[in-house]
């Protein structure tokens, strides 16, 4: 079964087509990089995948189900590009809240909260209020809630945004570790080098249409960098 499938999906906002007959499939256990210039429709793909928006035409299946069905979103970790952290809450309370929303409870919830805070390097700031966190730390908190409970599918929108080089390296490791235990990953990013290092397949979107898709070696010519391939596919 596919972790995520968009089948001939078109999404219109008024008269503007954000996506036009887009087909994306993410097999279980694989990592897909979603690339494209600003306004290409990458975030729309993620919104459709999570049931936050509905396609104007075509079908979206998340773990084989309609993403509007809450059951489809069980075991899904999501890191949005614009992370909204409630300043009044402590880091630990926020991660705990998302653990509860994911359905965890009791001692196992507490154990998972401590484990994920430790893994993402925020354990020593776990009691701090989030209002005072730097952008990099906030992004780590975002990763902590997304990675909570070892999800089966990770949807990451610009995951390295705001992270320092050490944070970028950590993020890469978290994604790799998730993949090594069978997690499917969809990464939407402008940082092509990160996609190259963490994903085995890419989809390049341009003005709502797929410009290229497939395994990295199918999209990138021998000796070519992903950045050059990206420019070639987008500029034609």
């Amino acid at each position, binding site marked *: 079964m596919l972790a995520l499938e968009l089948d001939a999906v078109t999404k219109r906002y008024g008269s503007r087509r954000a996506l036009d007959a887009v087909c994306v499939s993410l097999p279980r256990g694989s990592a897909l990089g979603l690339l494209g210039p600003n306004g290409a429709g990458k975030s729309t793909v993620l919104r459709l995948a999570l049931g936050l928006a509905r396609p104007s035409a075509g079908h979206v299946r998340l773990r084989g189900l309609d993403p*509007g069905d809450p059951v489809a979103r069980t075991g*899904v970790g*999501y890191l949005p590009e614009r992370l909204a952290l409630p300043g009044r809450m402590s880091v630990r309370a926020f991660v705990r809240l998302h653990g509860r929303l994911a359905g965890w409870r009791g001692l196992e919830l507490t154990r998972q909260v401590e484990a994920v805070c430790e893994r993402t390097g925020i354990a020593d700031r776990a009691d701090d209020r989030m209002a005072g966190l730097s952008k990099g730390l906030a992004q780590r908190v975002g990763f902590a809630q997304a990675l909570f409970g070892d999800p089966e599918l990770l949807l990451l929108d610009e995951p390295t945004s705001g992270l320092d080089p050490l944070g970028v390296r950590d993020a890469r490791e978290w994604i790799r570790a998730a993949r090594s235990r069978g997690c499917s990953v969809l990464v939407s990013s402008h940082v092509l080098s990160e996609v190259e290092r963490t994903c085995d397949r890419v989809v390049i979107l341009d003005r709502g249409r797929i410009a290229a898709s497939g395994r990295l070696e199918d999209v990138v010519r021998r000796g070519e960098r992903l950045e050059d391939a990206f420019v070639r596919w987008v500029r034609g």
Partner: protein
Amino acid sequence: MGARVTRSAFYAYRTLAVEAILDAVRRRIVMAIAVVTLLALWLVRGCAACTGGSYRVDGQLVDPGRIAGFTGVALYALLALWTMTLAGLLASDHLSQSLHDGSAPLTLARPVGRGTYALARLSGSLAVALVAGGVLLTATAGLLHARHALPLGPAFAGAAVCAWGALLVAALAMSASLVLPRLATFLCVLGFVGFVTGVNLAARAGAPLSGVSGLVDRFGPPLGSALLEALGPWIGRTPSHGPVPGLSPRLVLWAVASVILLVAAFRRVEIRS
């Protein structure tokens, strides 16, 4: 994940409702509500004592108990309507704000239903309004009972009407806030409560109503008339009989329909942030 993970919608609702209440309590407007509530309590204390002496209407001596009854109905109904309006005011951005600040998408990416989320946000705004209203109505009923021996039964029925009315107004305000800006939603709340109550009072006073006003009085949410019905025994009227004496089934139906409307409307919302 297995047995450690629950898919209970109630568990998610409870978690989100607690957060929604904490969000509502931390809003700056809550301080203003607390001040207004204290001020209202002080006024109630004064008004509940202002029926001493004898009164004559057209030369006839009026029973002071009847004066106390009318004062009690006016005071209690006014505070109940204030509570309903407050519920609408608090609900007019409690859900829409979470859509704009990005907290809703992060929550709805979890296995949380749209209905569960909307109901939790509704509970948050309603809780604050009902606590403020509850303090006022309890104090008013207590003072009227202690000073004028007005029975507490109508006060309980009036409080139930107030709670259902607050639910109705809050759910409608939250639904409207999905398509209207906050100020416009709040003005709609004021207009709605004012118009419906005005029509109900005019009809009870015997004014001939036709057109929209007549339809609103006969079939619309009976915010004013349900309150007058519940508090009727204070002015010598017999309450209607039903599952809860004095509580209008039409009001309950309207409240339930408003909540269903809110859930249905929120399920259709496209979240773009």
